[in-house]
Structure formats: structure tokens, C-alpha cells
């Protein structure tokens, strides 16, 4: 959008105030990132060296930012996305850099509150705040944004962001399993594909798309390898695995793949040598619910893995975690059309986002959770919800009933983008872990 076009939502802030706010939040957040990485090291004293790479990428204002700036100067385009419905294959095929821009920073929420009421989901408020002061390098560097109209918050967020950047919306149908839905979804993707081609000036040919799909296959392979390593006795702490998963959101896909494979090699060696990341009787926890985004959102994972008694996160059901790259694109015949259909299917059909509904009550999500609980031998589930996140909150009872049936305790944790409730949550999480521990030992 150009400067002269009318701003629909955003407020004018004095440049000086912007600069000040940006600097204070940046300093505070940098410190927090470093502190959290330090705390992860402390919990897991023999944390593999391979993790250092991910620590480096995890620092927002650092190596990766510089790389993207340089790539941009060479003429590469950056395409941001708010949600995992964005077709990364298409972005990569056009030679652009995909970055996820939904925010996990706490402080900008206060700024977002000036634009939207506090009842709104904090991810949305924080992303608005981040944009107001130009805080996130990835959001700032994006040439365009792909937003998904999943929940109410995301829908309006895409309008608000369109004050600043070209925004391309993707509207996932609320029902997945009908012919109309699938053809509608394909049309949506086709439109986005054309926009990507226009922005980058690159035609997405079948050989380019094939190579992008194969690159992501390799990434998915590494991703799943890491998640599969969490099936057995704990060789990696949950937070570290989550950090690896998250860095993929803005890292270079191929390098990330290599580094993750390396990490997995090391973890496999450890598993063979029976070197575990924590005692074997540590309760195995799964986090379900609203996405947890680096860095400030590490609140809950921190609490679980630093608690007394300690827990270890062996699985999650977050679109920013285990689900992010779990499903590969399954191409039958490598023609343009079939590849495109395969990409479209991959983003819509296996998604377990609660924005979908079906006759059987979003059975896909239930099945995903049940499968993870079984394969990762989960002792208890923390159902994590932000205030204002309707869809996840409303589906809690559905999930709880299922988990009750298979006798897996679940604990509902609602929180916000704030540090004030840490103490209070801590007691509750510890009580839950205490209970799990007694069950494990029993």
C-alpha cells in the first residue's frame, strides 16, 4: 500500500514515540530471548552443541535478519504468512523467502490494545502492536503477506495489516470434506499463486514447483525424524524440540534441514548410548491448543520443564509445533496440475485446526491427539488457551471427554500475553505434574 492511501484501522503515532517504543521493547525482548535460551541450557546441562545453531537463528535481530536483508537487496522477495495454511511450496517455487509473522512477543500487546479491545486474542493484538512500531524484522521485511481467514481474530487482523502491506487472503472453507470446498480452496490457492508470480516476476513452472516440493519433503523428513525421536525415552527436552520446530518459520529451509538432520544424528547416538535428557520417570506431557510462539510464549513450556516435579514435553498439537510440517505433499504424477492439487490437499485436508467442523465433530483433530497420546506415551495433556481464543476454548470439552475415556488427565490452562500470572500458573502446573508423577510411579 502506498503512503497516501487511507489507513482504515491504524493510529498515527509520532515517529519519535515509535522509535522509543521499538527500542525499549527490542532491548527487553532480546534479553528475554537470551535468558530463555540460557534457562533451556540449564535444564538440560549436556544440551547438544548442534542446538547452538538454532539458538542463533532464534534471536530475532541477528544473523537471519541480516541474511534476509541481503537477499532482498539482491532482488529476492520475502513473503510473510500468519498461519500454516499459506502454501510454502508455492512461495519457495517462485524463489521467494517464506517467513511466519504472527507474533509471540508480550510487550507489543499494549500497543495493539489501542486498536482493538482487550477481549481479542493476544496473538492478534501483539501482531498489530509489532507492526505499529515496526518491531519484527520478518514482518517489516515482507513484501507481501498471506493471511488466512480462519478465526475471527485472523480475519480482522488481515484487514488491519492491509494498512501497511499488500495482503493476500486465503479463506479456508469451514467444511473440508466436500467437493465444493476443495474446488473453492483450489481457486483460493490459484489466486495466491498468481499474485506470488506477479510479485516475484517468476513463473512457477512445473520443474520449479517440483524442486520446491522436494525441498520441503526433505525438510518434512527431518522434521518428522525429530518428532519421532520424542516417541521413546526422552533424548531431547520438549522446549528444545519446539525451538527447532519454530526456527523453521523464518530460517532457510535447506540449511534448517541439514542442521536438524545433524541434531537428529546426535540424538540417535545418545539414544543408543542410553543418555537421556531427563530421568526416565519424568511425567510425559503433551501441549494441545492455541499456538505457542517464540519467544515470550515460552512461559508455559518453561514452567512445565522447570517445575518441581519436572515434566517433559514429548508432543504438542500446535500449528506452530508438531503439526507445522508433519504432513508431506503426496504427489501422484508430477504434472503441474497434480502437483498443485497435491499442495492444495496438503494444506487443507490433514489440518486439524478447530476452525473446521464436520458431522462427526472435528474428528480429525480428536484422532490426531489420540494418535499422538498413544505413540508418544503421553501421561497428561495441558490444554493451552489464550483468553479470546474462542475456537480452541470451545473445543476443550470435546477433547476432554475423549481423553477421559482413554484415561489421560487433562488440565485446562487459560492465559494471556502477560507475565503477571506466572506465579499463579506455576502452582497449578506443579500440582498437575505432581498428580501425573504419582500416576507414573504408581
Amino acid at each position, binding site marked *: 500500500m502506498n503512503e497516501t492511501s487511507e489507513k482504515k484501522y491504524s493510529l498515527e503515532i509520532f515517529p519519535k514515540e515509535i522509535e522509543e517504543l521499538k527500542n525499549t521493547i527490542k532491548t527487553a525482548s532480546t534479553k528475554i530471548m537470551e535468558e530463555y535460551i540460557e534457562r533451556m541450557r540449564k535444564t538440560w546441562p549436556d544440551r547438544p552443541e548442534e542446538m547452538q545453531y538454532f539458538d542463533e537463528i532464534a534471536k530475532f535481530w541477528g544473523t537471519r535478519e541480516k541474511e534476509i536483508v541481503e537477499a532482498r537487496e539482491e532482488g529476492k522477495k520475502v513473503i510473510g504468512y500468519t498461519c500454516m495454511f499459506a502454501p510454502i511450496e508455492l512461495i519457495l517455487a517462485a524463489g521467494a523467502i517464506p517467513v511466519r509473522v504472527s507474533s509471540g512477543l508480550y510487550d507489543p500487546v499494549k500497543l495493539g490494545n489501542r486498536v482493538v479491545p482487550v477481549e481479542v486474542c493476544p496473538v492478534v493484538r501483539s501482531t498489530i502492536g509489532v507492526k505499529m512500531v515496526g518491531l519484527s524484522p520478518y514482518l517489516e521485511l515482507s513484501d507481501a503477506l498471506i493471511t488466512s481467514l480462519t478465526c475471527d481474530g485472523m480475519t480482522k487482523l488481515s484487514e488491519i495489516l492491509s494498512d501497511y502491506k499488500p495482503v493476500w487472503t486465503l479463506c479456508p472453507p469451514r467444511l473440508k*470434506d466436500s467437493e465444493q470446498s476443495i474446488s473453492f480452496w483450489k481457486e483460493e490457492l490459484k489466486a495466491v499463486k498468481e499474485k506470488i508470480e506477479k510479485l516475484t516476476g517468476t513463473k512457477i513452472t512445473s520443474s520449479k514447483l517440483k524442486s520446491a516440493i522436494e525441498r520441503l519433503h526433505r525438510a518434512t*523428513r527431518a522434521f518428522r525424524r525429530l518428532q519421532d525421536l520424542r516417541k521413546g525415552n526422552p533424548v531431547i527436552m520438549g522446549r528444545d524440540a519446539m525451538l527447532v520446530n519454530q526456527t523453521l518459520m523464518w530460517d532457510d529451509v535447506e540449511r534448517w*534441514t541439514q542442521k536438524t538432520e545433524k541434531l537428529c544424528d546426535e540424538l540417535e547416538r545418545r539414544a543408543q548410548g542410553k543418555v537421556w535428557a531427563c530421568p526416565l520417570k519424568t511425567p510425559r506431557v503433551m501441549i494441545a491448543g492455541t499456538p505457542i510462539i517464540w519467544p515470550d510464549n515460552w512461559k508455559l513450556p518453561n514452567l512445565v520443564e522447570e517445575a518441581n516435579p519436572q515434566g517433559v514435553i514429548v508432543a504438542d498439537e500446535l500449528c506452530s509445533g508438531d503439526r507445522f510440517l508433519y504432513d508431506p505433499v503426496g504427489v501422484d*504424477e*508430477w*504434472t503441474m496440475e*497434480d502437483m498443485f492439487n497435491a499442495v492444495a490437499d496438503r494444506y487443507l485436508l*490433514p489440518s486439524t485446526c478447530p476452525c473446521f467442523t464436520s458431522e462427526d465433530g472435528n474428528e480429525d483433530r480428536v484422532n490426531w491427539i489420540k*494418535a499422538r497420546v*498413544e505413540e508418544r506415551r503421553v501421561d497428561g495433556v495441558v490444554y493451552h488457551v489464550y483468553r479470546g481464543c474462542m475456537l480452541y476454548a470451545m473445543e476443550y470439552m470435546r477433547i476432554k471427554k475423549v481423553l477421559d475415556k482413554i484415561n489421560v488427565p487433562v488440565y485446562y490452562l487459560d492465559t494471556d500475553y502477560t507475565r503477571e500470572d506466572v506465579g499463579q500458573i506455576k502452582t497449578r502446573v506443579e500440582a498437575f505434574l505432581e498428580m501425573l508423577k504419582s500416576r507414573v510411579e504408581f
Partner: protein
Amino acid sequence: MLLEIISELLKLTIFAGLALAGILAILIWKKNLTTKVTYLRTFVQVVAMIAFFYIFSYTTWLLLILVVIFAISIVLGRFFCGWLCPFGLYLDLVAVIRKTLNTRYWSLPEKLNRSLHILRYLLLVFFIVLPFMLGPIEAWQWSLAKFLMGPFKPISVLLGPVEPLIIPWESPLKLYGLSFSYPYASIITFYSGENFALINTFIFMALTLASSFVVRRFWCRFCPTGASLAIVNRFRVFKWIPFLRLSKVEEKCTKCGICKRVCPVQVTDVYEQKGGDITTSMCMLCLRCVEMCPYEDCLKLSMAGKTLFKSRNWLEPSKIT
């Protein structure tokens, strides 16, 4: 005579050897797990086709062959269609040509696909039951009865798809001393009379090849032989008979839709059914869905309770160093 047989034998052996070497080369070159079963299947199909040639040259007792095929189908269901039928192989090869030309197939609307499947049974009834019903009534007077018991007698119709390309008997189409044929060609020849036999066969060939060029395994969607093999899978009462079963674990299926998209005969049950036994009469057990399903142990082929082959994370083998 003897010399001829030997020369044919030699030709076939060379052909089979070349095919085998080619497939092995592809297998080694392509370490991709998602096509392994497909290659194996093609290999088995080629071997089966050659076997049919030999069977035809040793016995003219077609009924025996048919009985054997039925016996196989009772134990294995429509495994025959996916792995042994020569006509199926030709149709698959047409698809290979289409793929190399980078053309995408058309999908039939689901309803049409299902009605074609019903048509298959109607054809079967038409060819098998009608002659027996008409026969006793009016003996050989009825021209329809004559027609059905004559060239279109059930045995030849049902054995139509297994006619190999090179046949040990006389045919209108000869090249370099070899007799060529095509599925159903002997029936068509029988029926068409001298002058039109070749033309009719060519028309039939053109139609079947063209239709399967645009729609995967088009003929197989209404083939009456397929129906006779499918019957044991069709009705619940017979469910206990075929030992080969396809099953799905509900929790492991993410409904990713891959199985539905890759199925050459557009079976939707694998995708839509919740879990448990998902063998259907439309499915020809080609296992494409099982090899493409990306989740461990989600889809499974089992025989008499033993797992023969199951889906797995096919991203696994491509180790990058």
C-alpha cells in the same frame, strides 16, 4: 514346428530378461519408496502376461483357466486385477505414456464411477446368466441365445482380458511370423467375419487405449471379469472368504486425501471409511494407496490376519548427508 517353438521361447526369454533388467535398473536408480510397489507390480504383471502366453499354448481348455482364476480370486479377491491381468498391464502402460507426455488424467465424477461399477455386474449377468436362462427355453432358436452361447460365450468373455499380445494361435494380425492379439480380439474376430475382424479389433483397441489414456484404467471400471472377481468382496456374507484384506487404523489417518487422489480406479472408501476393514469390490488391491499413505501403519494389507505390507513414512529413506 519344434524350431518355431524354440525360437519363440528364446524371444520371450530375452524379452522377459530385458524387462526384468530394466525394472531392476529403475528400482536401483529410483530409491523413492513411493514407487517401489508400483514397479514390483509392473514386474509381476509382465511375468503374469508371459505366463498366460504359456498357459494358452499348453491348454486349449479355457474353462480350466477360468476356474483357476476364480479360485485365485476367492482367496485373493481382486488381487488378480491389480497384479496379474494382462489387460490391466496394457492400460497401466498407456498411463505411463500419458505421464511421459506430461498430460493429466481426467477424474470421473464419483456418481458416474459408481454407476460404471454397477454396469459391470449387469454385463456379467448378461453374459453368464442369460445364456443359461435362454438356453433351455427355446433351445437354439433364439438368435440372442445363439449369439450369447456362440462367440460371446461366457468363458471367452470372462477370459477376454487375459489374452496376451502375442498368442500361440492363428490371428488376423501377423508380424514377423508372430501372431498378435489383444484382449477380446478373438471374440471380436469370431463375431466379425473375415473382412471386418481386423478393422473391428483396431477400433476396439483404439477405443480402449484412448479411453484409458484420458481416464486411468477406464476399462477396469466396468469390466465384467472384474465383476466376477469382485463378487466375494461385494457382499458382507462373503466377507470371510478372501484372505487378502485392506484395513485402516482410524486414529492414524489424518484424512490427508492422498489415498483418494492416487487411486487409479478412484476408490473413495479408503479415504471416507473410518477405519477397520476397507476392502471393497471396486478396489483391485494395487496397493498404490498403501504405498502413498505417509503415516506409519495407517493402511495395511493383510492376509489371513498377517500383515503383508503397510504404509510408512516414505520420506524416511532419502538420507541426506
